[in-house]
């Protein structure tokens, strides 16, 4: 028996069958149902594909962020990736919500509804896991940036000159990528000055990303993950770094108020390569160009946060004073209670005594009458006899 290809016949049969029963409305209904279902499936698969693409981007971002070398840091790429991933996540979010609305509107059978809601739930969980990974990556990245800066501080030198033009940056650097040991360069002034603007840079990048995150207005849980993580990262960095930054800015007498750029402009102190590395590193860390307005903005944010912090501390103090005064007053209330109880007891006893007295008085009256009667009798006797 030869193998005969009958696919075309099969197709023709199917078409004829469908055409025959095409006039019935029920089939139309089913078709529309199926159309809706296939539309749904198509949209869901699109979304799943996009989620996968986003996860791929996230992986590449992970690789970039996990690099521990001092110089291979590519902030532009990383930032672009971050932006791209954020946009994608937003878009996927919107699509999922659109799909959900669409699914609710079209009338489907119970099973189809259940199936579609399950699909949507799984898509949402995938998106949520993606965004939580994203958040972790961002945290790792900030941690890395801090470590890098620490390591650079260990080897960079403190003083700065008045020059405001940055030196041409060379990536060549004698420092190895080992655990840094406290070197003679790591004296208090770098801790004050160097760390200041660099820390200032980090909160600027975090703070800049924080409003970006906070501006995400989509309603799914992923956005709430974003805003909480980013704001927590920003808040965590700012109180640590602000005091340092302020002290540095007070000392620095550079032309521009941004001390960051001037770091790189130090000449002649120590080895040039050390200083260059400092400037290079700052350019990597600082996300925006430094000028008066940016510094003013950043400073005002820092100040606002500080004032909020102090207000909250004051409120805490007021509350503790409250509790103190209240506990004192509780004592007073107890004293009042005791006094009033005593009064009650006293008054009731006195009442009892008085009642006894009254009884005695009333009881005694009969005796009095008797005594008086006898006296009167004797008196009468004496008067009559005499």
């Amino acid at each position, binding site marked *: 028996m030869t193998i005969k290809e009958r696919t075309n016949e099969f197709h023709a049969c199917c078409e004829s069958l469908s055409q025959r029963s095409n006039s019935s409305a029920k089939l139309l209904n089913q078709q529309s149902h199926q159309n809706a279902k296939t539309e749904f499936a198509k949209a869901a698969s699109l979304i799943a594909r996009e989620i996968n693409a986003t996860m791929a981007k996230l992986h590449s971002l992970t690789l970039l962020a996990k690099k521990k070398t001092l110089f291979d840091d590519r902030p532009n790429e990383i930032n672009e990736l971050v932006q791209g991933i954020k*946009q994608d996540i937003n878009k996927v979010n919107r699509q999922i919500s659109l799909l959900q609305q669409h699914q609710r509107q079209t009338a489907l059978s119970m099973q189809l509804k259940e199936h579609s809601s399950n699909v949507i739930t799984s898509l949402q969980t995938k998106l949520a896991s993606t965004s939580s990974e994203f958040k972790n990556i961002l945290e790792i990245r900030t941690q890395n940036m801090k470590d890098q800066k620490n390591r650079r501080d260990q080897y960079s030198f403190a003083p700065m000159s008045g020059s405001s033009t940055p030196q041409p940056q060379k990536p060549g650097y004698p420092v190895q990528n080992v655990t840094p040991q406290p070197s003679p360069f790591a004296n208090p002034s770098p801790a004050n000055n160097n760390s200041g603007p660099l820390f200032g840079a980090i909160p600027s990048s975090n703070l800049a990303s924080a409003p970006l995150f906070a501006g995400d207005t989509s309603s799914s849980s992923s956005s709430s993950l974003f805003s909480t993580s980013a704001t927590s990262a920003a808040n965590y960095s700012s109180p640590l770094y602000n005091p340092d930054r302020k002290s540095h800015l007070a000392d620095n007498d550079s032309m521009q108020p941004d001390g960051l750029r001037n770091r790189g402009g130090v000449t002649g102190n120590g080895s040039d390569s050390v200083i260059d590395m400092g400037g290079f590193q700052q350019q990597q860390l600082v996300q925006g160009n430094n*000028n008066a*307005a940016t510094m*003013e903005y950043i400073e005002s944010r820092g100040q606002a*946060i500080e004032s909020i912090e102090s207000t*909250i501390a004051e409120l805490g103090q007021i509350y503790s004073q409250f509790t103190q005064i209240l506990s004192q007053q509780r004592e*007073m209330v107890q004293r*009042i209670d005791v006094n009033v109880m005593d009064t009650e007891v006293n*008054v009731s006893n006195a009442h009892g*005594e008085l009642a006894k007295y009254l009884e005695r008085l009333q009881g005694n009256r009969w005796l009095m009458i008797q005594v008086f009667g006898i006296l009167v009798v004797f008196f009468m006797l004496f008067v009559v006899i005499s």
Partner: protein
Amino acid sequence: MPKVFSIAVANRNDAGRILAAEHDLTSFNYFQRGSVQEFLGFFIKTATERTSPGMRQKIEEQNMYVGHVYVRSDGLAGIIVTDMEYPTRTAFTIVNKILEEFSSKFPTSQWAGLNPGSTASTYPELKAQLVKFQDPHAADPLLRVQRDLDETKIVLHKTMESLLNRGEVLDDLVQRSDQLSSQSKMFYKTAKSTNSCCTY
């Protein structure tokens, strides 16, 4: 009363072309509005061109209004024109927020097709936000938190005062109850003594 005159998004890579703009010119004379709008557009364009990417700038003009402009590293620029009273930090926060929304709503490919005239149809939320941001407290969460905290502090101070009053009242009550109890004790003693004498 701090006021926002306009919010706009422009593309610095494209010679400062405005992508979306919303104005609130109700404070101006009806006949002045046209020219003011034109001037604002020009101002926005120039400000965007003069600012390099990644930089924020604050441009004050004739003591009447201030333009806050922030150009992001990818060329997208956000400008907000306010009067002199509007706090700078809030203005930049708004700019950041608007840029974020804009870039999430319109990917880079769509930028060429946008122009300020069609803002009302393509990006109507901008108008709603312009209205919302007239009050700086609504825009900046930091300001809002600060204001709430201040109000809470005022309430707490009042409560503290009333608590101290309560303390005084309680003190008074303690003394009076003390007096009462001693007087009742005297009363009891007197009653007892009246009862004590048995002889008539």
